[in-house]
């Protein structure tokens, strides 16, 4: 890792101020991706602004169907939240599949959504749940937020403080892990709620997380795993790497969507 300067923030305001004081500064949440990237010398932030001690960014609140997950909430906290489980078990299930127990103790939803790794799990949930990304300066709807691999609508220095969404009527997540890294080779989050049926796919798209609109249409017509017979997934937009061909990923999109629907009930 290259040299860096560490700062610990205790409030959102302090964090934003520390971050803006250096051009090459980065926010550090759980660090489960950023530290690993820095160790490989693939990232070299001059300064790190640690968010783990910002109390206002932590915690889960559920009021009726309205859910707010503080950006600093760990995967383990999401996975084990009984309040969340009662309105949207699918997101708990998803969080419980990220990385491993130790990673889940550190990694946060805000960090994952900000990074927007094409194989991360959370982006699919945020997109399918039509969630809102709340930052220090505005609210961004999911459809506007994700802009391609590792690319988001976040401006320089903008800090995610929470993720909010309306709990769906039904939701499910199924993931086929990469045999080596255990990241999503393909993961599909399906949700049926106030904004209709939304299906988001992670791990497969050559431009990051995306909505599978053909599956959405089919599921809107009939919420059942029978859709698989009638929907074709275009392999043209899917990633190719040594672990999967676009054709295999196209198949996995259908199979995981089917399993996610089955899980949603």
């Amino acid at each position, binding site marked *: *890792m290259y040299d860096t300067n560490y700062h610990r923030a205790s409030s959102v305001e302090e964090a934003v101020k520390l971050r803006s004081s250096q051009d090459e500064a980065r926010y550090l949440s759980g660090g489960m991706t950023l*530290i*690993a990237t820095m160790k*490989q010398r693939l990232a070299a932030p001059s300064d*790190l602004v640690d968010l783990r001690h910002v109390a206002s960014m932590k915690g889960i609140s559920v009021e009726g169907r309205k859910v707010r997950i503080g950006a600093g909430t760990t995967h383990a906290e999401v996975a084990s939240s009984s309040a969340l489980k009662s309105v949207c078990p699918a997101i708990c299930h998803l969080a419980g599949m990220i990385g491993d127990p130790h990673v889940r*103790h550190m990694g946060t939803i805000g960090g994952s959504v900000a990074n927007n790794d094409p194989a991360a799990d959370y982006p699919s949930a945020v997109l399918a749940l039509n969630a809102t990304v709340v930052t220090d300066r505005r609210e961004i709807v999911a459809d506007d937020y994700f802009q391609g691999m590792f690319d988001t609508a976040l401006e320089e220095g903008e800090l995610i403080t929470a993720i909010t969404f309306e709990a769906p009527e039904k939701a499910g997540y199924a993931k086929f892990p990469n045999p080596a890294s255990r990241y999503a080779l393909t993961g599909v989050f399906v949700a049926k709620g106030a904004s209709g049926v939304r299906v988001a796919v992670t791990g497969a798209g050559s431009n990051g997380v995306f909505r599978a609109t053909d599956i959405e249409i089919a599921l809107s017509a009939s919420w059942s795993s029978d859709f698989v017979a009638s929907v074709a997934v275009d392999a043209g937009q899917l990633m190719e790497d040594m672990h999967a061909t676009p054709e295999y990923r196209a198949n996995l999109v259908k199979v995981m969507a089917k399993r996610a629907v089955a899980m949603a009930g």
Partner: protein
Amino acid sequence: MAKVTLTVNGRTMSGECDDRTLLVHFIRDKLGLTGTHVGCDTTQCGACVVHMDGKSVKSCSILAVQAAGSSVTTIEGIASQGELHPVQAAFNQHHGLQCGFCTPGMVMTAVDMINRHGGQLDEVTVRHELEGNICRCTGYHNIVKAVLSANEEMHGASRQAAE
């Protein structure tokens, strides 16, 4: 250079290090506690697992400065007065280790796992919970056996105490 002070195995300890120093290197090089190991570069093998504020974490993916002020338990800190922790004893009894390199991380993972599951562990759960720890020697067979046995021992013991 930063001065990092934290509680390790119940004792307050300090050391100077670069901001870029990883917690695992701080523990090994500055504090001389070499039981915590480094087996990969990508946060996957789990040889470096310690407990930070009561939760298992990978000390290879945390900066020492991030851990400042926290309470860290390493493999050196779980036996009490020469008496092995029930997880350590179970690993010995069931031959859950061979070369010993992944063992500290495995043991710290097992302790955390058993604590979190309140006695509700079965083979499938244990294997899933071991996703972040790689062992090349044992094929996991005896590790799984040891964790289940320690779980029985620890929760059996707490049930007895309650009675």
